[in-house]
């Protein structure tokens, strides 16, 4: 059943990625088709997660690949909040190829199959894994918004005659939305890390590379908000900082988890 739901989700995300590429070239029908691809793909993936949850007696996404599956769902969910608006369609070009690839990677890693029973309680996993992943999904979206900001700003700086041809959000909207997303995501990450550290201390475990990198990620995103509020770091500088923070998110999500999940 999960397999049956995985393929439509992947295909629809893939269709959305291609559609957004078409939208970037010729705004119109391709963008509408892509938006429907995201919506329907998200529904299919939601059903997939529901089937996994129903089949597992507990939190089914405690493995690295399983958490990647949940992470993709959270990213697409966050994107759907704004992504359906016409001017934000181009954001899909940054989000959907990424989502489609990660979902395929999650399947290759066994994240669609029934997860093995975790030694941790479901409550702890929901709080720790759920909150950290939700925060990372938010940071991913903030990075996508920042990338779109840099692209749009470059076009404005270069005074392209075609600047008004493609509907894109204003610089102020992109910058403000990225900051708001970080404002929501950072407390979630703080709580998620906090819950994990409490368990670490209680169990007498050692801090591993993933925990250290996650804390560094937290510091970068906290710096994003602090510099923004106190030093007026908005616009281009904030966008570069968000992209730096996203590199750490990728590192934490993809490169280091093996040690942590082991």
């Amino acid at each position: 059943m999960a397999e049956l739901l995985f393929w439509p989700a992947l295909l629809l995300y893939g269709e959305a990625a291609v559609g957004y590429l078409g939208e970037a070239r010729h705004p119109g029908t391709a963008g509408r088709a892509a938006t429907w691809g995201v919506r329907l793909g998200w529904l299919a993936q939601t059903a997939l997660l529901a089937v996994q949850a129903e089949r597992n007696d507990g939190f089914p996404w405690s493995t690295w690949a399983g958490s990647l599956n949940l992470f993709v769902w959270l990213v697409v969910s966050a994107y759907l909040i704004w992504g359906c608006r016409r001017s934000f369609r181009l954001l899909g070009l940054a989000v959907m190829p990424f989502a489609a690839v990660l979902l395929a990677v999650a399947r290759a890693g066994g994240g669609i199959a029934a997860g093995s029973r975790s030694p941790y309680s479901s409550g702890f996993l929901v709080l720790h894994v759920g909150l950290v992943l939700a925060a990372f999904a938010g940071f991913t979206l903030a990075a996508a918004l920042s990338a779109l900001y840099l692209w749009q700003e470059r076009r404005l700086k270069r005074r392209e005659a075609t600047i008004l041809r493609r509907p894109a959000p204003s610089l102020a909207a992109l910058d403000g939305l990225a900051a708001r997303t970080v404002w929501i995501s950072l407390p979630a990450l703080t709580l998620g890390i906090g819950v994990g550290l409490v368990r670490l201390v209680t169990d007498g475990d050692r801090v591993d590379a993933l925990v250290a990198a996650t804390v560094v990620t937290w510091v970068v995103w906290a710096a994003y908000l602090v510099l923004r509020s106190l030093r007026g770091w908005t616009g281009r500088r904030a966008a570069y900082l968000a992209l730096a923070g996203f590199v750490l998110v990728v590192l934490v999500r993809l490169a280091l988890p093996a040690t942590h999940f082991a």
Partner: protein
Amino acid sequence: MRLVLVGTSHHHAPVELRERVALDRERASALAARLAEGGCEAVCLSTCNRTELYVACADPEAAERAAAAALAELEPEVEEALYRLRDQAAGLHLFRVAAGLDSLVPGEGEILGQVRGAYEAGTTGPLLDRLFRQALHAGRKVRAQTAIAESPASVSAAAAALAEQVFGDLDGASILLVGAGKISEQAARNLISRRARIAFVANRTTDRAAELAGAFGAEPLPLERIGEELVHADLVISSTGAPGFVLDAATVAEAMGKRRGRRLLLVDLAVPRDVDPAVNDLDGCYVYDIDDLQAIVAETLVGRRREAERAESMVAAEAAKFHEWHASLDVVPAIASLRARAEEIREAELRKADALLGRLDESQRRAVESITAQIVNKLLHLPTVRMKQAAAAADGVVYAEAVRHLFGLGEDER
């Protein structure tokens, strides 16, 4: 009823001629009422780019002569610049006009309101009522489903659209107007219509600055104080006649240092330029000069024309629907007569068989009634459909005549 259009537009007449046949709403309404006398319908559409008379009348030649004479009364010279269209062509023309496809700038928004105004002031009946309602529907549809009206068509509109690309909603955005010329005033008005606020007006002559500032409720400034107020403005519109730069990179850089990352858009409409192009290299500053804006307008006009191609097919489809309806009017009386004759025969035959049917009980009689009615309906269904199809293909009148002849339908039923 036949549809007739007589008029002139920017395609056929220069402004000196058009202005002499332009009518205000009251006079247009009176002219329409005059042309509609004697059982006709009429609408006069008069804008700065066109004066057109739409008349629906049983006698199209007479209607056309009357409409042309009415326009010639206003200005005899217009006679040579008049175009005359009928039925399908006249209908399609109005649909294109309402969609902005016949306008100087494709997709311009004002025409839709002008068509609505003309319709409301006209003397309409079933034909023109339907024509104008469908044309207005087509105009709205084109604007909703294509991007024909989305891009700016003038330098001042392009400046406002750029400001929206930078700041999003312009509600409360603060503008510094440098130079109190006509061009910057025009751009400022466009921004005000998007709820931006003129905060300062700077000019070399303080009197003119005070005058314009008074009109906008802004603060007048001498040119020397621009640097100070740059800190507070979101948008600078400059169009002085100064021979050199009024705003150099150093002045703007100093102001940007105090703005805590707030973006600044500078629209330089002056020739020679007022704003040092190096300002564009500063973080958070975006400088657009007159050439940049003109390039954007030219590009968007190309985009509008491209969208106009899509809009043409939409308009043609909508006009075809109207034409089908209009053409079906030719065959409707014949269809109605045919059905009435069939019903008459059915009832007469049932009356003749009354002696036999009298032996049937009530439910059996109802069954006979129903069966005979169904036979008539089934027999007439295909001819009805075919006549309507033929009407749309311009053979309607021939078919209607044939039906009248074959079934002996009375001339009085036409």
